[in-house]
């Protein structure tokens, strides 16, 4: 391998061995999301954007105890950070007095408020956007390859990417918000990138299957690594600076890209290898 830190050999395992791990993880993820769906009605816990509420972002850090004391009369949601505090739904008059209080105490604070019905609308639209995006992506992939198994493999690994990422989000406590929805959508685009490269190389190039697979792996891993590097840099800055919008997007993309590596080089590579071997490739 060209890069020292990549030790996986895409040709060492049989297709069956390759797909076992991701398929088990996919089933576990679906179970987690299904359980959430059954118990709360949403696969991932919705954040303030969707469930309604108020968020206050401070410019300078403040002691959480001071914040608790200052906002004791309002529906504060724990845990509270030093720069980011959230409130549950409240009526208009309470919100106005909260806005005035924030303005007096912390004139440099950002306030965001989403009403419950508006949140509901946003949530419906976000889920619609995710569904349409996924269907649109699947149509493009099928039109591009016009062959069921290779196209199906790409769509399956994109589906696995989204599902597993959502499951990880739910386990580690990242809420579904407008930014994290955006990240999931971006993931649909990113995840097919390396899948398409793999499929094109294997189907359209001349040569031995093993060579094509390792060539694709070589290029694909570089692609994902550079993207990961960009996103990781974005995450570090957003985390240190507590920019929640960018931090949420970056966190979901980081998780998603790692999962995508697995799905591309185990799920998709496994299926395409099986498909080519079945058709008598060497």
């Amino acid at each position, binding site marked *: 391998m060209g*890069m020292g830190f990549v030790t996986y050999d895409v040709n060492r395992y049989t297709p069956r061995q390759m797909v076992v791990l991701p398929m088990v993880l996919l089933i576990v993820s679906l179970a987690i999301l299904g359980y959430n769906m059954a118990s709360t009605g949403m696969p991932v816990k919705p954040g303030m954007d969707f469930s309604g509420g108020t968020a206050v972002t401070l410019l300078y850090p403040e002691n959480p105890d001071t914040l608790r004391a200052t906002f004791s009369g309002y529906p504060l949601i724990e845990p509270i950070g030093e720069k980011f505090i959230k409130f549950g739904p409240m009526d208009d008059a309470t919100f106005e007095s909260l806005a005035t209080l924030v303005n007096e105490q912390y004139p*440099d604070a950002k306030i965001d408020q989403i*009403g419950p019905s508006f949140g509901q609308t946003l949530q419906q639209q976000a889920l619609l*956007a995710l569904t349409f995006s996924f269907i649109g992506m699947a149509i493009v992939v099928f039109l591009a390859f016009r062959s069921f198994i290779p196209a199906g493999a790409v769509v399956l690994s994109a589906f696995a990417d989204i599902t597993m990422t959502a499951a990880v989000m739910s386990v580690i406590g990242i809420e579904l918000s407008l930014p994290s929805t955006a990240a999931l959508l971006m993931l649909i685009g990113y995840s097919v990138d390396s899948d398409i490269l793999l499929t094109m190389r294997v189907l359209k190039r001349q040569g031995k299957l093993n060579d094509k697979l390792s060539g694709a792996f070589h290029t694909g891993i570089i692609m994902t690594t*550079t993207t990961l*590097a960009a996103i990781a840099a974005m995450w570090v800055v957003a985390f240190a600076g507590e920019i929640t919008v*960018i931090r949420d997007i970056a966190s979901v993309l980081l998780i998603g890209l790692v999962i995508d590596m697995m799905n591309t080089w185990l799920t998709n590579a496994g299926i395409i290898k099986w498909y080519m071997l079945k058709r008598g490739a060497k």
Partner: protein
Amino acid sequence: MNRKDLIELLKNWQVALLIVLLVASVFFIFPHSEDGKLTTNLQYGLDLSDGTWLQMEFQAAVAGFETDRPVVDFLTDLQKNLDAEIYHIDDRKIEIRKYFTRDDLESAFAASGGRLTTYEQGVSRETAEQVKVILEEKLNALGTRDAKVNPLIGLSGISSYVRVELAGVGLAQAQEIVGKQGRFEIRIQTTGNETEHVLYGDAINTVGVPTQEPPGSNRWGVSFTLTEQGAVQFRDAAIRYGATTDPSRHYLNMILDGNVVYSAPLSPDLAAKLQVEPIRELVASTGAGQDGLDAAKNLEIHLRAGALPVEVKVAGSGYVPAALSDYFKTLAIVAFVAATIAVGIVIFLRYREPSIVLPMIGTNLSEIVILLGVAALIQQQLDLAAIAGLIAVLGTGIDQLVIITDEVLHEGKVPSPNIYQKRLTRAVGIIMISAVTVIIAMLPLALMSLSTLRGFAIITILGVVIGVLITRPAYGKIIMAILSK
């Protein structure tokens, strides 16, 4: 590379276009110094510039109906049952300017001899546009520095929300401005230019939409009704100052916030009627043809004195202070620079060849510059989510340059121009497919009214389009020219 090769390279249309667009973009972004601070033509969204946003929900519904009765009868009864303003906006659709749940409407429709077929909370596109005009007029009258009013119109053509963004205004102040009504007064001409007070805006009960008076005449006017007391005041003033006997010398002036917005005499017909009894139903005529219609539309707004035709409720709001938006802006730039450096390091570790790495990063950055240029040109606002989109474009961009590089460098040797072209075409094929998927994936977001994520989707789509059509193919040519040395 020698001079001749360079000229050859520049003759390639994609490379030439890349350079032209780069120059044009810098021109559109127009970085310049203002009061010692670096400024550009880029538009920033609310989280990157101080101000307030209010998203307001229309307390109204657009409903489809079916009835076996004559439509006019059905609508008349429905209006009685609901006690709300109803406008027939389409063959089988009405706008109800009051909030009702679907269930409420279903029973009211049934009671009026019809059936509810569709229900959507919101207003028609026309009403939404009217709300926009009223709000903009009100905000401009108050001298608000930079106000944006956008009704969010869904794919069905119905608008459920209107979003107002006010730069440099606090949350409480913004709510007050949006809720505030103008001061409306009717005065009557006594002698010469002297006028006397007749009534204030509170005496106006309802205001209609522009209609032809009489129907089919192409002469336009706006009907309005007075309260009982207002009608008495109106009649008393008209009689006291002689407007009923000599209308042409006693014009009635309508004044909004100190400006005369309408001035006309009583019609002889109305003058005669007023002599007998108070009249509550009045029509202010505005003339014939398109001009008359336009004047009627304006007058309707003025009669409402800045009150919206539909009640709105704040559904969401937010405020970003200047200090915090500056902080976000700085950190967004830091995040972007950090991402670029990180990408540069990984690419260098992979290729260890400055003649590949530098053009790659250069192409990538020019993609971002062109993207910003387009954003400045179309006045697309940049907010935090759009910045994340920008960094995502950086990420996919570099991915695709890797695909091109590896595809053409296949087996390590630089191929002959013929084979090279074939491989480049194949590489562009791969990146085209993934570009189309990204565009398709982002399209729902760009079309939907999920306000804050639209910018993100538009930036991502634009970035991908610029990338696959211009910068990435140009990179293919540049890398060929460099490597064939």
